[in-house]
């Protein structure tokens, strides 16, 4: 087993409703791994299982080579699940100090007298550390949550929608931080709805739909893996064009165009011409991650809301 994180047949049912359905997944060390899916797809449930917060109905998961919920494996994990929560009557620094006290001692490194101060600086909260958390904005709470996740210099970082509420500058800093962490050997498992961000920061992605894994691979491969040829024809010729392009799984696109799977524009043009349908325009489209994601998940019918599932 080489993956820093591995799931085998992971299943979770809540009172007969299936939130996660036999998930098989492996994440190699030192990469930023995007975990995508529509609401209710099972992303947060997966993360909760990986953290030992929720017991799977079936299947197993391993973190850092140890089966969940072994505290030894979880000791090397930093996490921020959904909107991070803190004790509002305490300062940001005191919240982190209490988090530090709640677990094993923080790693000691020469030249770093105070790990709490270090992570507060790392996420840009050094100046606000002495303020009570009840006065923090949502973006500041996200940053503090990230600081809490980084506190123990984890080998695996689980982040669920970490950029929620951050301003553009904060998101850019966050992206840089994630790449730096991955460069330093930390594996980042990132769930996000910001597909443009995922496309920029992730090495690999997995797409979940209705509790099942529908796709996994490199971001670049996934984003360009499903090209389509779009041919604009006379509206009266659309039906004939669909018949001629049936081998390419053609489908209508508006009233005067057809979409055919594949990247061979010449073959499509030839097939149409041989059938007497002359296109006005033929273009090869390579969808981005967002369009690919929507195509893969368009038939999703959320069976259970992640936010309420564990109650």
């Amino acid at each position, binding site marked *: 087993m080489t993956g820093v994180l591995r799931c085998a047949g992971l299943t979770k049912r809540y009172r007969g409703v299936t939130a996660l359905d036999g998930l098989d997944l492996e994440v190699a060390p030192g990469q930023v791994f995007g975990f995508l899916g529509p609401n209710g797809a099972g992303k947060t449930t997966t993360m909760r299982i990986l953290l*030992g*917060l929720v017991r799977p109905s079936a299947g197993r998961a391993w973190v850092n080579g140890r089966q969940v919920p072994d505290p030894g494996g979880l000791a090397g994990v930093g996490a921020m*699940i959904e909107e991070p*929560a803190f*004790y509002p009557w305490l300062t940001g620094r005191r919240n982190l100090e209490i988090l530090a006290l*709640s677990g094993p*001692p923080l790693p000691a490194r020469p030249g770093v007298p105070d790990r709490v101060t270090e992570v507060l600086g790392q996420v840009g909260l050094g100046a606000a550390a002495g303020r009570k958390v009840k006065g923090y904005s949502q973006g500041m709470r996200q940053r503090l949550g990230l600081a*809490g996740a980084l506190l123990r210099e984890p080998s695996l970082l689980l982040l669920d929608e970490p950029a929620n509420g951050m301003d553009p500058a904060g998101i850019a800093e966050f992206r840089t931080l994630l790449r730096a962490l991955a460069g330093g050997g930390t594996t980042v498992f990132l769930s996000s709805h910001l597909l443009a961000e995922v496309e920029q920061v992730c090495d690999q992605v997995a797409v979940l739909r209705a509790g099942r894994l529908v796709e996994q691979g490199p971001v670049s491969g996934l984003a360009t893996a499903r090209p389509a040829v779009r041919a604009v024809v006379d509206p009266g010729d659309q039906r004939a064009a669909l018949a001629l392009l049936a081998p390419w799984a053609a489908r209508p696109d508006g009233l005067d165009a057809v979409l055919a799977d594949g990247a061979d524009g010449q073959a499509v043009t030839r097939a149409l011409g041989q059938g007497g349908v002359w296109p006005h325009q033929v273009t090869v489209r390579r969808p981005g991650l967002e369009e690919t994601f929507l195509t893969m998940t368009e038939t999703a019918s959320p069976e259970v809301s992640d936010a309420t599932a*564990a109650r």
Partner: protein
Amino acid sequence: MRLLLAELAKLRRPMTFGVAGAAALFCVLLAAGGARNASPAAQGAPGHLPSCAAAGVPAGPRCARWQADARARQRQVAADAAQVAAQLAPGAAGAEAAGLIASLPGALAIALLAGAHIGGEWSGRTIKSLLTQHGRRGQVLAAKLVSLWLAGVSLIAACWAPLALAGPALARANHLPAGRPAVLHGLSLSGTQAARALLVLAAFAVIGLLAAVLTRSATGTIAATAGTVIAMLAVAALPGAGAWTPATWVQAWMGFPAGLGSVTALPANFWSRFISAGGSPPGQGFGLAGLLALVAAGLTAAVLIFRRADVGG
């Protein structure tokens, strides 16, 4: 120990200070009322009896009966005054504080603290962060329980300290007798009651812990804890409930007087007045065994439930 320090740090919050302040205020107000109740002047019982003629009582057997009744009332007033003065002596006020905190007021205070400190981890969604830092759930519950118990113990101090300061002044202001029991005797009484209260507070804390694990919310924990304690008293008020209710174990272990015997000028507890005085009350040893069993059963149930529970929010 690190986890316990973290839990104690979380208890430094407005709710804890508010509950401690309310406990202190309650104790002082109760002492003020008790001192006033026991004041000879307020009882209209001057030192010398007026003559029957002055009181308008005809001479003869009626006069003798009236004088005997009046002297008995004077003796009762003097005894009440001496009793309250003894309760308010700085050394002995700890027994008063322990009795109040190990009864209904303390149980309600623990319910509030359990709601904020334990149930609030679910309501505030901080339970996820806590468990991702420390995955051993049994230890998390143990730290929660001990910290809540320590907060309960601190309520005895929060009640005792203002009583020790205000007690002598209240006694003087209400003309209570100056004769006080020996300091060592008062401290010994306080120490005994405070030590007994430790187990009762542990039982209240376990009820709060179990309520939090079951309801997973701050308000649910407060309601369930307070409701359980009140239900315990309601059951114990039933005639013939006997030795088999937790409320009677508390009464027996603390040595609270039964029934009307507990209704005095300055109540030493708010517990035994709710309990049926009929039947034979259990002994102190039975009370101890019952409370220990209650703590063990409650803690075991809480750990078993929490270990298997999914944590959402």
